[in-house]
């Protein structure tokens, strides 16, 4: 029933390793977003997408790539993970003409 799902829910990675976080939505929304949440910063936008094949840089894109292969799926890729990327990552979806967003349950990433 959950409309926005994320996998994995928890991940431990090593410094320098590659990490891929996945998001799937069944809302049939055009827009999808990746955020990270850190204490004292609220949620900050990393990358977003207006539809399949499109990705846009958000406010803190350095060290991250994104991929939107289909309407339903949006991935966040850390090519060379660093300890500073330890955080909780949230994916969200939204309809094409509205800013209202609906969030997944989050992924806790620890980079050692």
């Amino acid at each position: 029933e959950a409309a926005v799902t994320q996998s994995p829910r928890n991940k431990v990675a090593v410094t320098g390793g590659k990490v891929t976080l996945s998001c799937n939505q069944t809302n049939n929304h055009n827009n999808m977003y990746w955020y990270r949440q850190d204490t004292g910063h609220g949620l900050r936008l990393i990358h977003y997408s207006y539809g399949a094949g499109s990705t846009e840089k958000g406010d803190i894109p350095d060290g991250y790539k994104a991929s939107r292969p289909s309407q339903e799926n949006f991935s966040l890729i850390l090519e060379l993970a660093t300890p500073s990327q330890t955080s909780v990552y949230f994916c969200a979806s939204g309809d094409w003409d509205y800013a209202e967003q609906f969030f997944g349950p989050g992924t806790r990433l620890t980079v050692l």
Partner: protein
Amino acid sequence: GDKVKQSPSALSLQEGTNSALRCNFSIAATTVQWFLQNPRGSLINLFYLVPGTKENGRLKSAFDSKESYSTLHIRDAQLEDSGTYFCAAEGRANTNKVVFGTGTRLQVLP
């Protein structure tokens, strides 16, 4: 500086009392969204507002775009209202992107 400022940063309430949370914007916000992040970490949608007010049960929210603020009123607070409340504002560029505040941590005490 912060584009979306929330106040207070933390708050404790006795069960059954009322309170108001506030967001002030330094951007020309066109829409506002309010979320509750529960103790499990899930983000729950509360309101999505254009300028005006909305009410849902014990919650009421208002958004004044001219004065650049939004409020969330909680009436008859219950234990399950505990968590962190976030507001998020969309700027006038209308890119469907939002900026989040840093949250108000609410604890409702029995």
